[in-house]
């Protein structure tokens, strides 16, 4: 038998798995390389509920497909397969992968986080203006295209019912806003909360973030923004912005993505490279032909030390001490001294 003139969408290797299905690399006759999200009926879902969700997915896919934006992953098509028990959502392939990988590797630079944040906030703003919500903003749903531009992915796949339902076991419950825990109602402001949580995680990396209790345990009690532990190089402007995004009171949070864009534009972005280890943190900042280095290490919660120096990037020149403590000291004192040091840089 002759092969079909128009071959069907081919599923290739698995790219990853998310809250609501698996993502495969695909080959499409029109778009070439694509990403295909395969979503299936959940074991707990009734047929009526699944039909309702499919209808919602179709509506979202239709509006996304029609409303293209530079910072939102393009949806090409949606298809019902396996006798209606699965949905194939065919989207633009983002070869840069998701920011989950960057997050797991460690803290991103302030410059990189601001770039990503500005780009995805542009996408979020556009979608909010169309009356849509994301409901699932997290590092794994921020994707990088071939030019390194950040795009919002998995838009519109989550409903309020699913947010606090079966799909929550995969980890994104940590991005649920304070008011959603009691009201189960999402809004533009709960998207802004999730964006704030995402930025905090990208700035600190997985090791630092995971050392604290998961937000799902502490956010419902309130006051989460005040409990955040910051890496000392993160400037005050960043802290104020993220705390505002994570304010329990929705009237005190940024009211729109436009306001977030304004805040992002005013942030300082010193180019420290940061590495968080099990018992130390190291910062590096190239300045001209020298490298500034800061090291903070600890032996126990009460025994910390830090030292900062600059050294030549080439073979000539001497190492110069910039600061530090002579004796082991408490963690709080060390963090205070480090914050003062970074502020003075």
């Amino acid at each position: 038998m002759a092969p079909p003139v128009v071959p069907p969408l081919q599923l290739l290797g698995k790219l990853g798995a998310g809250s609501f299905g698996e993502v495969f690399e695909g080959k499409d006759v029109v778009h070439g390389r694509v990403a295909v999200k395969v979503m299936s009926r959940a074991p707990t879902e009734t047929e009526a509920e699944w039909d309702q969700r499919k209808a919602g997915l179709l509506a979202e896919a239709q509006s996304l497909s029609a409303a293209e934006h530079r910072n939102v992953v393009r949806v090409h098509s949606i298809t019902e397969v396996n006798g209606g028990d699965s949905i194939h959502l065919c989207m633009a392939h983002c070869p840069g992968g998701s920011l989950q990988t960057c997050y797991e590797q460690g803290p991103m630079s302030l410059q990189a986080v601001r770039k990503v944040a500005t780009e995805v906030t542009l996408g979020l703003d556009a979608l909010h203006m169309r009356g849509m919500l994301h409901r699932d903003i997290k590092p794994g749903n921020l994707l990088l295209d071939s030019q390194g531009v950040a795009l919002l992915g998995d838009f519109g796949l989550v409903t309020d019912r699913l947010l606090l339902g079966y799909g929550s076991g995969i980890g994104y419950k940590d991005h649920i806003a304070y008011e959603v825990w009691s009201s189960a109602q999402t809004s533009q402001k709960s998207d802004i909360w999730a964006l704030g949580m995402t930025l905090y995680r990208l700035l600190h990396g997985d090791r630092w973030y995971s050392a604290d209790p998961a937000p799902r345990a502490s956010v419902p009690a309130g006051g989460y923004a005040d409990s955040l532990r910051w890496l000392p190089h993160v400037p005050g402007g960043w802290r104020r912005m993220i705390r505002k995004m994570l304010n329990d009171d929705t009237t005190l949070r940024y009211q729109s993505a436009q306001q977030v864009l304004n805040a992002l534009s005013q942030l300082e972005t010193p180019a420290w490279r940061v590495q968080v280890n099990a018992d130390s943190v190291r910062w590096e900042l190239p300045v001209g032909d020298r490298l500034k280095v800061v090291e903070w290490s600890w032996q126990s919660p009460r025994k910390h030390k830090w030292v900062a120096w600059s050294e030549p990037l080439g073979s000539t020149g001497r190492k110069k001490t910039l600061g530090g403590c002579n004796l082991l000291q408490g963690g709080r004192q060390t963090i205070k001294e480090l914050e003062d040091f970074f502020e003075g840089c």
Partner: protein
Amino acid sequence: MSKRLASFVVSGDDVKVVVAQVPADPKDPISIEYDQTWKLQSGDREPALCMLHQRCASFLKEKQVAAVLMKASAASPLAKVTLALLHSAEVRGVVIAAAASVTEVKTMAKNVISRTYGERNVDEYVKDDSFWTAQTTGGKLRAGSREAAMLIVASRKA
């Protein structure tokens, strides 16, 4: 039928943006939908200008404005050309380019508005609270944004 217009006034690295719904009948006040100041991103100017272009184009596309009114560059013949003035002109150029990629753009010179709109000059209208009470409705218009809103008001007579 009413239409949605946006106006921009650039001053230094600040961009004042006003969006209003403009009724067909010039006697009806314009309805303010958006009034904010965008600040050029801190740090290197090249990525900051690029981001401003993206933001401006995306915003205007999503707001579906019918046209953009831009305060024209102006300088007295005796004015000294400073770096700040040139930087401000860069910002204005980026906004004009971004807006023109999405919709129709019209630049309006302040002195021309003063000559062609009403009997007073623009600065006098800007200071007149009762004028703005009569001319606007809807969202709050900041006093500092009146010059931008004036472009929209004046365009109705043009």
